[in-house]
């Protein structure tokens, strides 16, 4: 019983590592005091989710999703089982671009906060807001 459980855990080792990465990002977003560290945590969280989605499209024995013998493709059928699933790749391509856009906005807000309060530490910013 225990052996079977351990086997199931080890067989899915990649999913456990994705969850670990996701939790590292969540920890940094919640527990870190510095705003830049929080933004790094947000990006780690996003890449962990993208990694999970891309890994879903992997097939055993599948090759890159580019049709072989493109010019003679009408002569023989394309077997979908021979190619990796390209749908998660395309969706996650959009997610990467969106993550860079959110990163730019977050860093711009961080620079604005620094100009206002001369610090990036969350507790010091809150203390200065209370002083006013």
């Amino acid at each position, binding site marked *: 019983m225990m052996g079977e459980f351990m086997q199931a855990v080890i067989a899915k080792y990649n999913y456990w*590592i994705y969850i670990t*990465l996701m939790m590292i990002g969540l920890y940094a977003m919640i527990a870190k005091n510095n705003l830049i560290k929080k933004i790094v945590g947000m990006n780690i969280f996003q890449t962990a989710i993208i990694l999970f989605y*891309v890994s879903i499209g*992997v097939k055993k024995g599948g*090759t890159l999703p580019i049709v072989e013998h493109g010019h003679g493709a009408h002569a023989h059928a394309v077997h979908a089982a021979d190619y990796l699933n390209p749908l998660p790749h395309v969706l996650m391509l959009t997610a*990467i*671009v969106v993550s860079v856009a959110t990163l730019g906005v977050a*860093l711009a807000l*961080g620079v604005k906060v620094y100009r206002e309060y001369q610090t*990036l530490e969350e507790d010091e910013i809150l203390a200065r807001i209370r002083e006013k």
Partner: protein
Amino acid sequence: MLWQLDLAVLTLVVVVGIGSIMVKDLLGAAIMFGAYSFLMCLLWSIMGAVDVAFTEASVGAGVSTVFFVAAVFRTTRRTKD
């Protein structure tokens, strides 16, 4: 997809990810995050997602690192945690 290579790169990704949020210097954190993005790009090319891999290499490891370094130079390198 070799599982040994996959596991080795995944372990490195976790180590560099922890390093980038633990290092006590924001410029160091930015560079560690660039290394994290590049390892992620390597992982995606191992998985056969080449389009995602080159987008991550240019946008994640390139533009994101430049943004972080620019933000750190406009603010401060010091951090308490």
